[in-house]
């Protein structure tokens, strides 16, 4: 990278960070009672506990904005890693069984074993995500012809559908649980609570740090396994670390917001369009842009049908599916 490019990239990074800050303030100011952005700013810089609006901002709106940023960042980074490691532009943890595995495990854990403790939620989600991924990769690799991108995706869809039916069986056999899960199941920022969030945060942090640490090797891997080996990268090791990182990130996202489908397709592709193929840049950019994207989507979800709101997950799936279809048309 030349020096000029470096400065340009740095500027772009700070610019998108500024954009996220704006989206953050906008997200908080919008709601049942519109709060001017200036007041939102004051709530953080000059907080007064006798001011009603300041309390609303800190206690109700801030958590939701934090959920959105964290979920968006973790999903975008997970998607980027997955696409880099599998060298498959359509790879997305929600297609490859991680999201549905995590969701299924959480539902069974809470609904059936009654483990309502919030500390368990990310843990269950992580185990489920790992199991889902293992199942998909296992099936794809034993199919005659090996794990091509297509078999990987089809195996993922089959496993997702399978876990989905297990979910509906669990729900049908235990209907009281269902009414509580209805909105969470479509992926929503409204259901999360601060306790779960704090328990999910370490998972998010660990996943993000791991992603940053292996970003260089993932760039090499994205060029092909031979090339990567030639550059002194051990593909198997990087793949395993990447999988663990994606698992931790997906678990954090599912624990906070439920299964959000296909988000991870959108952001990594947009980022790559501007940034190129260096994962040392893609990972941080994905984290920032992903967080901002989710803030905007969540704001839109609350505005469109105000005073009611749409589940954030439904919007992300619609956008993600459109990008997916477009990718299939453009790349194949």
């Amino acid at each position, binding site marked *: 990278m030349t020096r000029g490019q470096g400065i340009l990239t740095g500027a772009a990074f700070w610019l998108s960070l500024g954009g996220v800050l704006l989206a953050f303030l906008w997200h908080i100011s919008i709601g049942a009672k519109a709060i001017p952005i200036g007041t939102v700013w004051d709530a953080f810089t000059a907080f007064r506990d006798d001011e009603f609006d300041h309390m609303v901002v800190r206690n109700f709106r801030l958590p939701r904005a934090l959920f959105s940023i964290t979920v968006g960042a973790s999903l975008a980074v997970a998607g980027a890693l997955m696409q880099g490691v599998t060298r498959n532009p359509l790879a997305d943890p929600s297609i490859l069984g991680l999201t549905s595995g995590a969701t299924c495990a959480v539902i069974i854990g809470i609904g059936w074993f009654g483990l309502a403790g919030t500390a368990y939620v990310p843990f269950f989600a992580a185990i489920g995500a790992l199991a889902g991924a293992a199942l998909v990769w296992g099936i794809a690799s034993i199919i005659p012809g090996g794990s091509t991108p297509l078999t990987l995706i089809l195996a993922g869809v089959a496993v997702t559908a399978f876990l989905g039916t297990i979910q509906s069986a669990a729900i*049908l056999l235990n209907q009281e649980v269902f009414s509580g899960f209805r909105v969470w199941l479509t992926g929503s920022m409204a259901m999360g609570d601060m306790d779960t969030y704090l328990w999910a945060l370490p998972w998010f942090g660990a996943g993000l740090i791991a992603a940053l640490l292996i970003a260089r090797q993932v760039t090499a891997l994205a060029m092909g396994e031979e090339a990567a080996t030639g550059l002194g990268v051990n593909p198997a090791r990087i793949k395993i670390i990447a999988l663990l990182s994606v698992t931790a990130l997906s678990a954090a996202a599912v624990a906070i917001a439920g299964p959000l489908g296909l988000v991870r397709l959108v952001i990594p592709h947009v980022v790559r369009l501007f940034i190129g193929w260096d994962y040392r840049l893609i990972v941080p950019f994905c984290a920032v842009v992903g967080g901002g994207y989710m803030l905007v989507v969540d704001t839109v979800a609350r505005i469109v049908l105000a005073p009611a709101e749409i589940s954030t997950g439904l919007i992300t799936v619609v956008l993600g599916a459109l990008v997916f279809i477009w990718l299939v048309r453009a790349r194949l």
Partner: protein
Amino acid sequence: MLTIEAAGGNIAVRLPVGAMVIAFVLLLANLAVATLSVTSGSFDLSLGDVWNTLTGTPPTDMAVTIVWEFRIPRLLVAILVGMLLALSGAVLQYVTANPLADPSLVGVSQGAALAVVMAIVVFLGTTGFALPALAFVGGLAAAALIQILTYSRRGDEPLRFILTGIGVAALIGAVISTVLTYGDIDRVMSALTWLAGSLHSVSSSELQWLFVTALVIVTLLIFAVRALSALRFGPELATGLGLQVRLVRALLILLSVGLAAGAVAAVGPLGFVGLVAPHIARRLTRAGVGLQLVLTALTGGLMVSAADLIGRAAFGDVQLPAGIVTAAIGVPVLIIVLFKGHSK
């Protein structure tokens, strides 16, 4: 292989004895499940009672109602649905040359499901012939959308068809979720039972509908067997054999959609039958396309009727929809089948 001694020397007549035997065994298995199915349930009826009812000397009036209005229609619907779905999956797998193609994975079932869910939740529960017709239209519309998005002058068309289908399936799934999440809870619960693929409310109107669909489409399928055999050798050779590959493929996909939509219309999206049944049939024996399709249909019928039997008998008071049972059994079976195929 049967060898017949003839006057001028040996004439070898290729008779797939093995496959015929397996077809017969499958038929027997279907009968066995059918027997269990008509005799088990909350109202006790012995096999003798059922037989007497069927032959016209019922033990009680109650038995007539139960056998003729509940158990027999339900059983026949299960078998027919299984056959249609299995055939649909098999045709799709032949056409796309992909062992994992299945109507419920590529958006056809979702299209049908969306039409029905809208009818139940938004338009206050339509019944009778309207529901199957809606599902049929929904499935075809989804397939048409996928076909339009897939159309392009270059590249691998079956591959794009499947991947576009997955994208469309996700899109339709989001719309279904929206309806289910924000609709009235009581209607949503009834839509959800339908969505899980349940046979608990089938009546003779569904049976008539299925029977007509099966008759029409299976007749069409018989004409398609030659084209399917040619396609098995790959597009180049099929073209060489005088096939208009593109046209034939599109027609066969349409046929596959019709089969799936007919089944989904009757009982909701039953997953995995279309995916798994052709694999099981292929593992049982190798035969020509025609006989293979017969085996696939028998396997599918067996799967769904057995799943329905397990779902309503095995869990006491709770009736588990057949779709959940087929998925719970189907996926492990699929993994075993694929694994066996690999280790050979």
